[in-house]
């Protein structure tokens, strides 16, 4: 039975990737789970310099969801390369780095720091964080800026470039195509949905930043729909993300057209989630007399649509 997949020239031993911002730098989970179980992991978003992130409170629960405004607190890309990457070298998993920037030039500079560094399998380009005042969603919400950021990163590296798209747009296919035209090798789909939770007693937002990004099971149907739309709009592979915590959840994305998936909020809930999903995927393939997970990808039988 083969669970392995190829995404943007990156060989993943299985289609499960730990999502950026929900898995620290990977090393936090050492001892809690075997990192070599994972197809891959994506680091917390990194700028050139360390960042404090947003004031607190930063997270609040909503029905079946998590609203966060962490604001990309991080150690900076150079510290990551020097102190963290060597600790991940011993694991048999693909390490992707989430690249952030306040400006197009900063994205390119962070990329240049990572280019050619041993142990980096690919770059996920964060043009979709809703919790920063500059960069992030501002780039992912404008197709021209999406193109510009991706093209600048493309020029700065030979590593696989994987923009992470924002769901906070009317038509995600426009952004998927812009990223593909700019030279992206794959797409991550989707980041969090912009949300607002209000404390009715104080009439203030429950998050210090004001708005936040919604994740978790609450957003899964939206994420599956957008993954399906994006996968049909481009030739490059799509990585599905949004509220995955079981094999059935992961399969929805694969059937919708994702080549691989990312597990996000579920990392906070249960470090045993990967073992559960992998067991469930194998059981599914056995039940359907399939021997390759790739046979499931883009097999949605959608009413009235040609596949």
């Amino acid at each position, binding site marked *: 039975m083969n669970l392995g997949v190829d995404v943007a020239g990156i060989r993943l031993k299985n289609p499960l990737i730990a999502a950026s911002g929900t898995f620290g730098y990977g090393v*936090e989970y050492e001892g809690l789970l075997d990192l070599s179980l994972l197809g891959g992991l994506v680091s917390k978003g990194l700028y050139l310099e360390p960042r404090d*992130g947003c004031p*607190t*409170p*930063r997270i609040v629960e909503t029905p079946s969801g*998590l609203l*966060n405004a962490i604001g990309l607190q991080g150690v900076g890309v150079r510290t990551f390369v020097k102190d963290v990457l060597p600790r991940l070298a011993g694991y048999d998993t693909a390490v992707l780095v989430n690249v952030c920037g306040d400006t197009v030039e900063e994205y390119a500079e962070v990329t240049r720091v990572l280019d050619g560094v041993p142990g980096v399998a690919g770059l996920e380009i964060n043009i979709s964080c809703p919790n920063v005042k500059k960069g992030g969603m501002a780039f992912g919400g404008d197709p021209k800026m999406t193109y510009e950021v991706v093209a600048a990163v493309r020029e700065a590296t030979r590593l696989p470039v994987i923009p992470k798209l924002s769901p906070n747009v009317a038509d995600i296919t426009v952004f998927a195509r812009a990223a593909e035209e700019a030279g992206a090798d794959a797409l991550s789909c989707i980041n969090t949905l912009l949300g607002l939770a209000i404390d009715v007693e104080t009439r203030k937002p429950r998050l210090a930043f004001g708005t936040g990004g919604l994740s978790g099971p609450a957003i899964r149907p939206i994420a599956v729909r957008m993954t399906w739309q994006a996968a049909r709009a481009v030739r490059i592979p799509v990585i599905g993300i949004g509220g995955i915590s079981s094999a059935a959840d992961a399969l929805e994305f694969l059937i919708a057209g994702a080549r691989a998936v990312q597990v996000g909020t579920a990392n906070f809930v249960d*470090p045993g989630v990967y073992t559960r999903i992998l067991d469930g995927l194998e059981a599914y393939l056995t039940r359907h007399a399939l021997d390759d997970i790739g046979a499931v990808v883009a097999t949605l039988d959608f009413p009235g649509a040609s596949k």
Partner: protein
Amino acid sequence: MIPRMPSNRDVPLLRRQPLEGAYVLLTFRHPEVAREARAGQFVMIKAGTSADPPLRRPFSILSLDPGEESFTLFIKAVGTGSIALAAMAPGEVAQCLGPLGRPFAAPPRGTEAVMVAGGYGIAPFHMLSAELSREGRARQVFYGGRTVADLQVRAPFEALGVPLTPATEDGTLGHRGRVTEPLEAYLDRAPAPVRLYACGPDAMLHAVARLAERRGLDTQVSLDPWMGCGIGTCLGCVVWIQEAEEARPKYRCACTEGPVFDAATVVWHGEPASLARRRQETRA
């Protein structure tokens, strides 16, 4: 001390002991927690596997029973997560990760441990009292709340022979007023050097930190910010901490670098720098 790696387990509820109001004691079987947890550490726990609410909740460990391989939590059912836990029946299973966080450090030899709890903040002090009692160390507890119903965990301290001074704002038990009042009265006449341990609402912690600063007392506080994961990755529970040698404070995770901190390194709300830093600057 470097904390041991926590264990992720499905834990059966062994016993459920309702207290007054929304309070309940829950005893779960978890061999690693029962064997390895230290006072001040906590678990992340959630009833069942429902997606709503999605996250586990942090609770200080009240007590351990290594023989039974169990630990007990003191829970106030106030939100969706704690209400679901409090409604569990014996035999039902919770998802539990622990033990987590840095424990309290024992006081130096010849120093008395004086614990200050605000309401719900009593939880970690039963275990600390048990640890100190086993070692024959001097220790006592000041326990404050709005009213007597907030002071639910008293008998276990009596059983350990730990002196406990209650204080309630409405005078329904012990001293009428804030817990810091009998505390200060004691500190004025304390026969031996004292180290303070505090757990409770932020305002009480800040008040204890201020009086400790005035009196030059070493103080450990257990902080309780909103926590998402318990293992340092969601970055939801960060607090401003500033060591003496740090020019500016840093956000540190209460789950992995705390929840117990030296009060002198905490940048309290409305203050520009930690006490440790201010002392360093005065020296320089």
